[in-house]
């Protein structure tokens, strides 16, 4: 479904991606792990075309991501941004239903609102939240609204950038389950970035570790614990000693 071939991206002298190769089959859930600042968010943005790679190819459904109709391409995606990226001029429900209120997927206001409230419920938020503004919510609540917005139009491909950071353990559990459900029930293809190893085990079919601008290791989640790769081992056990430097 998604394939990256030798993707490079640098910001000035800062070489973030140095030839990323990655393939994600349809209907699978991949988790990307890797140290802070290794370029995980940049990787997702490259696929969405928000960041233009310097080199390399990105295929979505077999077709190059940067060719063809941009609207049709983006309509297949849902994205949760790391910072939530809610529109602070709009109330929560209009954020969630943004796609349902305009453009190709436009529908009546009541219907859009009902869907928004339902999606909010799925991320553990009460209907009363619908009429608040993003600035009135806590960080974790904003994150969950962002999650609701990402899944509102039931996209085929969903990207989650750290869906559980800033959430309490119970809420994290709810969100992990939700992501799993979306993949299993809706047949969506998901790519999730997370630092939370519990989430990795709950969400992932496959795991990929980004380090030094390349995919250091990738494989089924069941093989993650047994891999001898010292980078993966250090990361999943959270050791200070190992090949990954602690000052980056």
């Amino acid at each position, binding site marked *: 479904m998604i394939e990256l071939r030798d993707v490079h991206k640098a910001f000035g002298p800062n070489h973030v991606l140095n030839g990323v190769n990655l393939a994600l089959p349809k209907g699978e859930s991949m988790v990307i792990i890797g140290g802070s600042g290794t370029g995980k968010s940049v990787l997702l*943005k490259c696929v*969405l*075309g*928000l960041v233009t790679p310097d080199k390399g190819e990105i295929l979505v459904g077999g077709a190059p991501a940067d060719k063809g109709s941009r*609207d049709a391409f*983006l*309509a297949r*995606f*849902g*994205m949760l*941004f*790391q*910072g939530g*990226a*809610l*529109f*602070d*001029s709009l109330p929560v429900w209009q954020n969630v239903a*943004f*796609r349902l209120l*305009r*453009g*190709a997927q436009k529908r009546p206001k009541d219907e859009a609102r009902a869907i928004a409230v339902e999606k909010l419920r799925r991320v553990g938020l009460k209907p009363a939240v619908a009429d608040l503004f993003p600035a009135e919510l806590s960080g974790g609540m904003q994150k969950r609204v962002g999650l609701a*917005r990402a899944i509102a139009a039931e996209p085929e491909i969903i990207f989650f950038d750290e869906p559980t950071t800033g959430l309490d353990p119970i809420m994290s559990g709810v969100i992990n389950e939700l992501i799993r459900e979306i993949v299993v029930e809706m047949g969506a293809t998901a790519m999730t970035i997370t630092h939370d190893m519990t989430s990795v085990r709950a969400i992932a079919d496959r795991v990929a570790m980004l380090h030094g601008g390349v995919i250091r290791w990738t494989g089924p989640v069941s093989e993650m614990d047994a891999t001898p790769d010292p980078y993966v081992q250090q990361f999943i056990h959270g050791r200070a000693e190992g090949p990954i430097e602690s000052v980056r």
Partner: protein
Amino acid sequence: MTLTYPFAVLGRQVLGFLAAVGRIAIFALTGISHLFRPPFYPKEFLTALLQIGYFSLPVVGLTTLFTGGALALQIYAGGARFSAESVVPSIVAIGMARELGPVLGGLMVAARVASSIAAEIGTMKVTEQIDALTTLSTEPMKYLVAPRLLAATLAVPVLVGIGDSIGIMGGYLVGITRLDFNPATYLKNTREFLEFWDVASGLWKGAAFGFIVALCGCYFGMNSARGAQGVGRATKTAVVTASVLILAANYVLTEVFFSA
């Protein structure tokens, strides 16, 4: 090397300046082109109209009121040197309509609107809201920029028209209370010597200035650097650039309109 160094610096700055002008021009054309291609966002347009037009009324009104009053005093003092005090009403009217209404209105709107547009769009940029718009299949140039360009271009001429009237009224109030003009004569002189083109040229200027204000706000907001500092710098640059461009455009338009 040391001899050519200043020229190298100068050359780089000129090139940088030209590149920036080119980028702003392309940005402006892209923004305008989105006004003619669906989907349209009427709600965004109306909100912008309200923000830019309606809420700028008090600022523009007060500015022109005081300026009209001061203008009457100055022209009276100047006119008295060659016993031409009677020109006060017509000069106040012509000065307000042709020059001070649009320029002061434009500058006040630049201070109020270019800054708020740049800060708003800049904040959206650094908090990834612009990226989020794109992923939600909404073109930011169409959703954020085009409505503001149109709203400012339409709203500022109206503000200028109202500002002209208030400024002339300021002159009138000073004229009849402080300078012993007969109210009826003052109004008659104002009406008789003010020509249609005096007012119309000012309104055209207003439209141009409104466009400049929205363009600068949007452009520097969309190109804001990361972080709070980035947004702060974008806001400052937007206001300064809009103000300078307004004054420059004012000169050019005055040449075009009035040098026969």
